[in-house]
């Protein structure tokens, strides 16, 4: 048919196909390289180096902040921990209130303030064959 596109005359389709193939081949190539023990060892060394760098920076920054009488990350962490403890206690209080709501309500689903439809739905009849 005249309106049927032939892949041979559509350079854009050919380009898209090439793109997909190139992606697969490049990924496969890099995966081969990254699967080698030398790569894993180099990655481990890089991780160790960057973590050590970060550790020494943190210590230096901590000393600097301390000399300026400013709170460091650990100080904020301590405050956050206290806030978390307060949140957990609030959660426990809310939980107790929720339980009381459930116990006193005639129908479940009242926690969210909405009534739920009945739990009576049945699966639709099987089409042709069973699962």
């Amino acid at each position: 048919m005249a309106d049927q596109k032939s892949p041979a005359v559509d350079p854009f389709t050919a380009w898209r196909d090439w793109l997909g193939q190139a992606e697969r081949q490049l990924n496969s190539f890099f995966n081969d390289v990254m699967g080698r023990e030398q790569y894993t060892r180099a990655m481990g060394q890089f991780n160790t180096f960057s973590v050590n760098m970060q550790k020494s920076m943190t210590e230096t920054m901590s000393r600097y902040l301390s000399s300026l009488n400013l709170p460091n990350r650990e100080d904020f962490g301590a405050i956050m921990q206290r806030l978390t403890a307060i949140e957990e206690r609030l959660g426990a209080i809310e939980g107790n209130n929720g339980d009381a709501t459930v116990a006193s309500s005639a129908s479940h689903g009242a926690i969210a303030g909405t009534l739920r439809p009945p739990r009576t739905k049945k699966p639709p009849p099987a089409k042709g064959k069973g699962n």
Partner: protein
Amino acid sequence: MSANEAKADPAIAEVVRTEVARTIQRAIKGVQYLATPDPAVGQTPKDTIYRRGTLELHHYRPTCDEIYRVPLVFVMSLVSKAFIFDLGPGQSIVEFLVNKGYDVYLIDWGVPRPQDSHLKLEDYVLDFLPACAARIAADSGESDLTMIGYCMGGQLALMYAALHPGVLKNLVCLATPVNAEGMGLFRTWSDKRYFDVDQIVDTLGNVPAEVLYNSFQMLRPVQRVMSEIRLWDNMWNDDFVRSYRLIDRWGREQIPFPGECFRQMTKEITQENKLYKGELMLGGRRVDLHSIEAAFLAVMAEHDHIVPFDSAKEMLEMISSADKQQVVMKGGHVSLLAGANASGRLWPFLDTWLSERSV
């Protein structure tokens, strides 16, 4: 000579005409793309019925006149945000199941804070999941429950089911690995001779989101560049762009991993393969997948580069359930669950499987 050329000319002209029109559209819509924010996610109406630290348990509001008896809960991985279950209207497995008459809950672990670095697998499996299950039972009035875990969320669900036999009626694991031997490059990279997980966790606390993001990107090093080329190529297509932006947003919004849990996952699950060997101990109890008797479904993706089929192929043999099934579907790790492919493959399959087991 001329007969073929006479046929080819109108075809070439049509191709060129289409490409010129698309190029104009790409320019216009490309500007719109840059000028507009990421699309909103997680829009299916819901109520948060339980909070604890960063954990939130959501209940989705039913839309049907009657619902199935057994509620179901989605369990997310600790690696990514939970909105992959509810990307946007028409792109959400949660919305799909709610509209099919299921009573849907979702456990969103949230974004771990520095003070959450002490959280371990025991906290998730023996504390948070049972607390959520109890809250769902109180909210729904049903003691039966279906749990659906995705990726590492499936591993948490497996551990929970193994340590709480009889609690779950149905268990569904989507793209969930059990055998670390089949985890490909992740397994290679976590070789204990070269990967010092103790140093990372002791120094950093939580594992930074960038580290995890880069690890996933390294599995397919050229995927990012190629997907941006494909985005430009399809910029004229609103549906493609919307779907791309939703999934791209999810991929970019990586979250940190709680440090102690990462240490456990790396040493015990990946390096020593204890979940597969039945040697994993949580709270002094052995996690034995043979003790799982709930109706069980495992779904894997054929082209999953993060959780290859090899890491899950023996899962059925490890589960004692009389009613168990494993299927492999076309797609990758994300397209198995979200996007146009999932809406035509996994979602209707899951609906059929669940409907018979949710009454």
